[in-house]
């Protein structure tokens, strides 16, 4: 009886220390699960597989990448939100999971804004708006004129209804006062041939996706959503230049998140680890090749950015009437 009680006390003590006393200097004390909500082979997966080993060498613990797919990333996101807030279960997110899904989905398994602690932006990608090379409009202004003259006749593609890239196109057409039809595909890979075949006339994605087709002359860029013009394509105007600065709040970013309630020291430590990893020549070269940008946010700055972005997206999504039951 006595023995049992002591054992119980010891377990209780152990439990207390493991919840409150996850000492940041001991962290990480066991392998880290890096969860992502999408299938192997996609951009989020590629980033996870590159950042995972880099984190491993920064933190000195195994980092295990795990794909938990389903419901446009909601399944993976919710599983991290519900995990022990000790920094050993982390989410590598795509922007759409955090700032778009809460407004497109009628019901969410968790609230990504408040149930997660936002650690760092792992990668950022400027959005490029591209069109088919045969489309007569020579540049973005001409494209907008053309679409205005033919309301309801021009189509744009999306990698799935409610995806961040769908919302970006909706935001563009709301602010430019255009009327185009959204055609939904299962991923950008399925939409690309239709764009090359001029079945759809506009699509949004990162530069890495489009560059080979710009070079081959199948597609042409319309504009880039970035503070400045992209140095490889200096003739392509920015969103601000063509009169839709509102889109600037959006980009195709990828982030690192922990469950809400994770000790601040651990969040800081992870933020620093990401910063160090991205500064290594190896990763910064890979990021360059993938058309990804390093944005140095503190956890507070990252959280603030997410709040701003999701406020804008909430309104865009409500106006466009995008709703996933």
């Amino acid at each position, binding site marked *: 009886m006595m023995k049992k009680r002591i054992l119980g006390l010891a377990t209780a003590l152990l439990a207390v220390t493991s919840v409150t006393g996850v000492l940041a200097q001991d962290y990480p004390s066991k392998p880290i699960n890096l969860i992502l909500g999408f299938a192997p082979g996609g951009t989020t997966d590629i980033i996870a597989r590159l950042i995972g080993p880099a984190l491993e060498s920064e933190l000195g613990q195994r980092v295990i990448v795990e794909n938990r797919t389903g419901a446009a990333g909601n399944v993976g996101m919710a599983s991290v939100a519900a995990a022990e807030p000790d920094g050993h279960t982390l989410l590598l997110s795509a922007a759409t999971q955090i700032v778009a899904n809460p407004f497109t989905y009628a019901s969410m398994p968790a609230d990504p804004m408040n149930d997660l602690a936002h650690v760092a932006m792992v990668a950022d990608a400027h959005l490029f708006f591209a069109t088919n090379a045969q489309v007569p409009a020579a540049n973005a202004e001409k494209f907008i004129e053309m679409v205005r003259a033919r309301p309801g006749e021009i189509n744009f593609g999306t990698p799935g209804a409610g995806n961040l890239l769908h919302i970006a196109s909706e935001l563009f057409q709301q602010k430019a006062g255009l009327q185009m039809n959204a055609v939904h595909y299962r991923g950008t890979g399925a939409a690309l041939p239709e764009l090359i075949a001029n079945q759809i006339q506009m699509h949004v994605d990162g530069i890495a996706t489009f560059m*080979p087709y710009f070079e081959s002359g199948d597609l042409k860029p319309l504009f880039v959503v970035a503070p400045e013009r992209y140095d490889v394509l200096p003739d392509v105007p920015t969103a601000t230049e063509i009169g839709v600065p509102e889109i600037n709040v959006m980009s195709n970013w990828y982030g690192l998140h922990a469950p809400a309630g994770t000790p601040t020291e651990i969040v800081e430590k992870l933020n620093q680890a990401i910063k160090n990893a991205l500064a290594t020549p190896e990763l910064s070269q890979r990021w360059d090749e993938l058309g990804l940008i390093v944005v140095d946010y503190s956890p507070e700055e990252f959280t603030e950015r997410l709040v701003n972005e999701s406020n804008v997206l909430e309104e865009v999504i409500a106006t466009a009437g995008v709703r996933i039951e």
Partner: protein
Amino acid sequence: MTSIFDSLIMGFTVAITPVNLLYALIGCVLGTMIGVLPGIGSLATISMLLSFSSQLDAVTSLIMMAGIFYGAQYGSSTTAILCNIPGDAASVVTCLDGHQMARKGRAGQALAIAALSSLLAGIIATIIIGLFTPPIARFALNFNAPEYFSLMVLGLVACVVFSNGSVLNAFIMAAFGVLLGCIGTDVETGAQRYTFGVLQLSEGITIVAVAMGLFGLSEIVVNLANGNKMSVLDLKYKMRDLWPSKAEFRAGTPAALRGTFIGALLGILPGAGQVLSPFASYMIERRLSKKPGQFGEGAVEGLAGPEAANNAAAQTSFIPLLALGIPANPVIALMLGAMVIQGIQPGPNVMVTRPEVVWGLIASMFIGNLMLVIINLPMIGVWVRLLAVPQRILFPAIVVFCCIGIYTLSGSVYDLVALAAFAAIGVLFYRAGFQAIPLLLGFILGPMLEENLRRAMVISQGDLFSLFQRPISATVLSISILLLLMTALPSFRKQRENFAGSD
């Protein structure tokens, strides 16, 4: 501009290095192994190997992955022929006549025919890839939403018209399959269909559970109920006794050539082609055959044609990737991801910018196909012995392997429930005389038909007539209508009933 011959030589110098040969072999062996095990497919295997392969040289890792991809198809034919368990939708067709051959004591011949047909198809399809990749890929761009819709319509009409039972029976099954295919989240609106609030159904039912349940497990139950026995195999066979006869070669070769042609053509169409090709080949072979009644009873053409079609389509499905950077199926999408991890961005120029990768991969396909036959032909003797295992041990083992395979795909118990449910449905269908093939085709084609129709309608602003204004779409739809009209004609109906009634 270098000639294709020079490019191929360069490709072989890449593919024939000891390291690349070794990884081609590893890929082929691994692929064959996971193919033989039901359920675990190349998709799951390559995903698991993604981290490992990114440490290899780009071309080496692609050669290994491609080896796994087509090795798995070889392997799944083996399980289909010996155990009547389709590892994926495509090998369902292999079960039909391949397993019947095995039941009649010609398992060795069936395995050899499958391997040789695949080799023939693999070699021809790889030559096609080497010679025509860019123009073919450009041609495939003419297939857009309306064309895909029309192709799906033709697929469904043909499977109903050419089924070997009553048209009404086949139509009901196809319609039921389309409804089953609707289960899950609607791509356009996100609406939940037929999920009854069950979260696990929101991703739909996995095709593997449907195919395995309807064709594999239900067969086991039926066999046990009927007390059927496999013809007992004489274990004192010689290797020569497993080799196909001259008559079998004569029947199989033209079928395999036709299958290669059909498969190579359909394989270039992203999404639909590879699954459709064995079914298309089977229907055509049965139509051309002088003894259509033998189909489903162990017809050599019914095995050789679809096996060739499947393998040819698997090879040519690389064409959109190599020429345009477009993945034709989930496995190739994974390989595209692997290329990106390696710092290669696939696109229209990848053949120019990274010729050693593209041609090395193409050359390795020749080598891989040869390797597979060399590995597999001597193995036939071993596989055939599997049939000597008593049913009371073999059957439970098959069920266990199926369950493990399905579970590893998703880690979801619901998929096991689905497997059991479709096994039960399969038994009911057998008892009631319903055909499961139209159901499976409906399940595969239905969702693609719907998605593409909706895309076509958005793009044409709701003009239904636009489907007839595009040449390819109009032709395919006309053929479908013609087939339907033929079914109504008394003379055709009589002929159809004749061969339907003869089995």
